[in-house]
């Protein structure tokens, strides 16, 4: 992407509102510790006040003590979230707005973390780069928790001669692993890279709504503790989908899940609004829609799905929480409710969520493929059509999760058709990647390896998904380990391995350090090998008929489960090695040049570390983003060799 630059007006010329006190105002006194303290205080006060009022109310009104107890815990968790957000300074902005105390430029700079050093990572900082790194660390922590729970699950299933955990606890770690990993996967690419990289990639100084950016991250931070605490309150024993009526009868831990999802949906919605608005309205001059990097298009596609469908998921949990906390009857059939209503509301997001995860990772791989093949993207328009097709058709596939529930059997065949149809736009995306790689001379590096891995995993996950979308096949496969292997190939195989490649690719820009590819590759390939062993064996177990979410099973499934467990431990070792590469590279890696990959996209044209407002002067785009080698796409020598020398010099 060729660029020119344009000068902008000087900030000092702009009339400023009256500066009340030191820049930043109330937020100067806030950080993560004040947030936690305020959250805990409000939660404890709510618990004690509520225990005097809510529990007796539940007993006398509903003749069912759990109603009051659940209302008490719901109020406590919500109080934690509100208290935390107040303590970290999230409400300062709206209050200032309503009082007419608009931010001065000095205020905005303070909030963006100027001159705050490392303290800015612990505050309500609005700089998109800080928020991106906060998301990255949060994703790593969540993957750590979810991965640990996965190891516990595989340990239980691998030790076939005795029970390691009680059945109830086993169910709890299954459910918690599921939802922790879903949250981690949703934020894995769109969180760190959508926030850090996307604004620079389109030539913007920041996100459209910097304060909402900080709000989306800290809401996520506040949403996680109720979920983790739920493990100590009986856990989530009904899988990540928390189906009714099971969750209505589950221990109080289910309340933590419901509050987490309700808050996380706000966080995701706010982030989606911000990402879409930024890309639509803040692109550099000259960046017409056919010059927008494909990664930005993928982020928009993912954000649209999240924006539209997450409220359905959110309201399914609002109503489920109402059933438990107030005794209403949305999902209780005895009193006029319907469990199928829950399943419909849940799967309206539950299925598009897979695409929310996979689309950004796929788009990132496209971005990487063009750089490391030094070729233009194979059919930009087909890629965009693929994203649009997935977004459109994702709205009409949810019923395939309900084939075997007995809900509207006549709907099975139309939804079978729609589910198979979505493989066409998905196929577009695979073909664009294949076409970009085709007959190219690859620069063999870790990000490029992630492209190959994503392609393989996505094809395996996609084809097995087509089988499962067939109603007759699903009658046999439903609820089996085959389904578990299938969605792990999509979410982990495509989503997580893609995210790993994307983070390695943009690591130099985000941390100003080169990623240690030698150690990182060992971890990456170890995890890949373990992944194939784990989930290929699981396909076999599923085909043999092993049901999922079952603690004890027939000896016929032992070998598959032993292999899966060995594979899982190999994944764990690989991920720890990869994590070690991330940490050591971040702490003491070789300093990165501004553009180590000799990429043409805008984020590599600015200096490293990226300055507070991203560009000294705003760029103007004068050509397409992927003009590598044009007119001869195979003339890769010059730029690639130059880039190799740069990286090799370290």
């Amino acid at each position, binding site marked *: 992407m060729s660029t020119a630059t344009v000068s902008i007006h000087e900030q000092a010329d702009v009339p400023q509102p009256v500066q009340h006190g030191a820049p930043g105002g109330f937020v100067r006194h806030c950080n993560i510790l004040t947030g936690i303290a305020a959250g805990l205080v409000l939660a404890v006060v709510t618990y004690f006040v509520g225990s005097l009022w809510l529990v007796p109310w539940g007993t006398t009104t509903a003749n069912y003590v759990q109603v009051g107890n659940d209302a008490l815990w719901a109020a406590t968790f919500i109080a934690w979230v509100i208290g935390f957000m107040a303590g970290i300074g999230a409400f300062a902005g709206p209050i200032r707005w309503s009082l007419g105390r608009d931010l001065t430029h000095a205020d905005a700079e303070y909030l963006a973390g100027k001159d705050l050093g490392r303290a800015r990572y612990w505050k309500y900082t609005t700089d998109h780069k800080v928020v991106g790194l906060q998301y990255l660390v949060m994703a790593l922590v969540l993957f750590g928790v979810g991965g640990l729970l996965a190891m516990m699950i595989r340990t239980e299933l691998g030790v076939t001669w005795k029970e390691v955990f009680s059945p109830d606890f086993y169910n709890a770690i299954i459910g918690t692993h599921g939802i922790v990993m879903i949250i981690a996967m949703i934020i894995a690419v769109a969180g760190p890279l959508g926030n850090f990289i996307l604004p620079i990639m389109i030539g913007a100084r920041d996100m459209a709504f910097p304060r909402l950016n900080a709000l989306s991250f800290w809401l996520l931070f506040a949403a996680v503790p109720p979920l983790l605490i739920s493990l100590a309150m009986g856990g989530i024993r009904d899988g990540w989908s928390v189906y009714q009526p099971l969750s209505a009868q589950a221990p109080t831990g289910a309340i933590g899940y419901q509050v987490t999802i309700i808050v996380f949906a706000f966080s995701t919605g706010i982030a989606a609004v911000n990402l879409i608005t930024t890309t639509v309205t803040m692109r550099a001059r000259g960046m017409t829609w056919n010059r927008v990097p494909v990664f930005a298009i993928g982020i928009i596609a993912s954000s649209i799905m999240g924006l539209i469908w997450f409220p359905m998921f959110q309201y399914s949990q609002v109503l489920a929480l109402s059933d438990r906390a107030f005794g209403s009857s949305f999902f209780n059939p005895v009193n*006029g409710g319907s469990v199928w209503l829950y399943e*419909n509301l849940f799967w309206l997001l539950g299925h598009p969520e897979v695409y929310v995860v996979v689309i950004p990772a796929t788009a990132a791989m496209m971005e990487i493929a063009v750089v490391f093949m030094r070729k233009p993207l194979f059919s930009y328009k087909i890629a965009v059509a693929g994203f649009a097709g997935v977004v459109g058709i994702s709205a009409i596939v949810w019923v395939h999760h309900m084939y075997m529930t007995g809900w509207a059997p006549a709907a099975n065949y139309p939804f079978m058709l729609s589910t198979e149809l979505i493989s066409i736009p998905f196929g577009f995306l695979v073909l664009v990647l294949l076409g970009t790689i085709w007959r190219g001379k690859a620069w063999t590096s870790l990000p490029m390896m992630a492209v190959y891995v994503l392609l393989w995993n996505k094809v395996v996950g996609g084809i097995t998904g087509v089988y499962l979308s067939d109603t007759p096949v699903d009658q046999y496969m439903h609820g089996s380990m085959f389904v578990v292997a299938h969605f792990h190939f999509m979410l982990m195989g495509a989503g997580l391995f893609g995210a790993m490649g994307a983070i390695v690719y943009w690591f130099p820009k985000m941390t100003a350090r080169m990623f240690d590819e030698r150690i990182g590759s060992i971890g990456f390939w170890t995890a890949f090998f373990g992944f194939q062993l784990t989930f290929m064996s699981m396909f076999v177990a599923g085909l043999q008929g092993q049901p999922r979410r079952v603690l004890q099973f027939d000896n016929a499934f032992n070998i598959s489960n032993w292999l899966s467990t060995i594979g899982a431990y190999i994944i764990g070792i690989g991920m720890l090695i990869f994590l070690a590469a991330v940490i050591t590279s971040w702490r003491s890696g070789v300093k990165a040049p501004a553009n180590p990959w000799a990429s043409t996209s805008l984020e590599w044209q600015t200096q490293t570390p990226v300055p507070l407002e991203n560009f000294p002067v705003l760029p103007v785009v004068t050509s397409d983003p992927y003009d590598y080698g044009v007119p001869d796409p195979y003339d890769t020598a010059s730029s690639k060799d130059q880039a190799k020398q740069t990286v090799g010099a370290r």
Partner: protein
Amino acid sequence: MTVTRDIPLSPTTGEPVSVVARRNRLGVWLCIISDVTGVVALLIAYAYLWALNVNGAWAPPKDAFADPVTFWVVALGGIVTAALIWFGYRTVARGGRGVAILALAVLVVLATFILQIVQLSTFPFDIQDGGYASATFWLCIGAAFHLSLVLTLVIGVVGRTRAGLINAANPYHARLVAMYATWAAIAIFLGALFATTMTVSPNTQSPPFGEFQQVPASASASPAASASPAS
């Protein structure tokens, strides 16, 4: 880029406020789209339970449905509020003061909000009294949430207009609030429409639920007994 002095600039980013306003407008539209999906989820829940009448438990005890007039008064309050905010915005944008009109909007939305709370606390049924009661309670809670949000926003707009921060050159925040208030009025209207026109379920033959009979252990030993349908 040349910037002339008569274009008001955003103090934080230095961009013309019309550019920031365009960005904010898209943001509000997207927030509204997300809110629409949430409201649709509530309406789906209402219509779903109304159509199925599971276990014959849709209607509240003694068919004591809520008084329809209150729903429509609340909806009218929402519509009048939105109209006043739009009127106030246009007045300010044309160079008028508009504070009195916006202050009137505050009074109307406050009265509507109070009426909504009164309605919630005086329903002739409890939230636990079946599908209609549960769904209606949540439609009204949704309306109260929307009204409280509009109330908070319009109070801010009045304060900012009085302080001169919303003026003819920079009236955009009033417009953003008017946009949201319009959607809030539509959402409340839809809730009223559902709650007043879809009361008695069309499904009068709903199958009973929960009448399964436990087969005694001795009887279940025989294949014939275990295959017999539950009564």
